């Protein structure tokens, strides 16, 4: 019963969807202010989701159940991630061993759902988007996992998110140490790519491949994909806070840290042009991986 409550209401589906949609509004508003515009009203993303769920669902020829079910796959995984990460703050003691590894796996599923759905739609531009998304996943997973390992080593081999948070409560945030700072930089670049924000939005480039992976989606499945993105916008910065910046876990402090991280991500998004997929791969397998390895070595040395 408690598990169901935490999955469906707090900190799972309902809470993460509400916060995520508000965070998406912050994204649009801050982007608008950067471009000297007014920006949409606060309820814009809620309206978009509602409107999309009333629209007709167009099924392209040759697409079937896989096309319609893959949004649900990504959505369920995103909600589960939000629940696990949220519970690391709410009930740190009750986490199971290795939940950080589960979160790492679950975070790949929304991207995998995009790839499956795009491939099932049978559209050539969606296939281009899917292949780019696949390359992007392969390139950012390596530095992301390396920076997670650096954190685990730093926290004395703690494999529970709750333990990592508790360790930081006792010994101070990871981000103020050398290894923590370096792996944080590597991880935030990976998070940018996980969210599909510029400069890593080649897989759904609206200007060149017309929405890429999402090109054939309409109506309710598109709304589910947008909701998944919103939940990830809530979850990933919170995950970063739990790993790197959990020295103080008061509600207001977490909120402040979350907004700071969100605005940093939005600023990176708004000040960088889109990278070609080969440039993105070179970036992730080169400098970012080296950064994560340096962080890991420093963590092993106890810095």
């Amino acid at each position, binding site marked *: 019963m408690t598990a169901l409550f935490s999955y469906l209401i707090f900190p799972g589906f309902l809470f993460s969807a509400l916060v995520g949609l508000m965070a998406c509004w912050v994204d649009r508003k801050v982007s*608008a202010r950067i471009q000297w515009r007014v920006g*949409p009203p606060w309820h814009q993303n809620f309206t978009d989701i*509602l409107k999309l769920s009333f629209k007709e669902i167009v099924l392209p020829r040759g697409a079937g159940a896989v096309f319609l079910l893959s949004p649900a796959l990504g959505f369920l995984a995103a909600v589960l991630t939000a629940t696990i990460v949220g519970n690391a703050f709410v009930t740190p003691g009750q986490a199971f061993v290795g939940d950080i590894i589960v979160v790492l796996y679950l975070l790949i599923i929304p991207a995998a759902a995009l790839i499956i759905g795009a491939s099932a739609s049978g559209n050539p531009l969606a296939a281009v988007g899917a292949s780019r998304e696949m390359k992007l996943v392969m390139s950012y997973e390596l530095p992301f996992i390396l920076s997670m390992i650096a954190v685990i080593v730093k926290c004395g081999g703690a494999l529970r998110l709750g333990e990592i948070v508790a360790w930081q409560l006792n010994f101070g945030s990871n981000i103020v140490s050398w290894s923590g700072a370096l792996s944080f930089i590597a991880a935030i670049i990976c998070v940018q790519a996980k969210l599909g924000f510029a400069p890593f939005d080649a897989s759904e480039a609206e200007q060149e491949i017309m*929405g890429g992976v999402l*090109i054939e989606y309409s109506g309710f499945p*598109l709304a589910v994909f947008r909701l998944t993105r919103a939940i990830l916008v809530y979850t990933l910065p919170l995950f970063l806070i739990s790993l790197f910046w959990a020295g103080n876990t008061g509600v207001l402090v977490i909120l402040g840290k979350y907004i700071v991280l969100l605005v940093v991500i939005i600023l990176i998004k708004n000040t960088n042009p889109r990278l070609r997929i080969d440039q993105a791969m070179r970036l992730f397998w080169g400098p970012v991986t080296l950064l994560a390895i340096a962080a890991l070595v420093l963590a092993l040395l106890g810095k």
Partner: protein
Amino acid sequence: MDFKTRVLTKSLFVFHAACSPCNNCDIEILDVLTPRYDAERLGITLVGSVRHADVLLVTGVPTRKTAVRIKKLYEQAPKPCLVIAVGGCACGRIMFRESYMSPCALDELLPVDAYIPGCPPKPEAILAGVVKLIKKLRGEG
């Protein structure tokens, strides 16, 4: 006014369908998105794929080649899909009316919901046209 119409009019996703225009109208449409006019504050966003669209913003005269395609594009859009004709060409073919390359006007192909005349219409005129369409949908006048 039911809830569906209410949310639809508050979040219009616009697909810009260039139906052999001379590009003047297209430039004016892009002006609507710039900081001076900022259509996003009304919930209007430009989308890349016609499957996401609520509004088909058509510029130009349907020619023998584009007439087929604009019709196909409308069929690909999820319903309800509104059509706005921007510019004199899309509204009434102006000087291309007698052209051998122009088989018919846009409103003989698609159900056009709003006409925004002008050559090209000013950004203010485009916004005014969209607002009139929204008011018509909501039954406000």
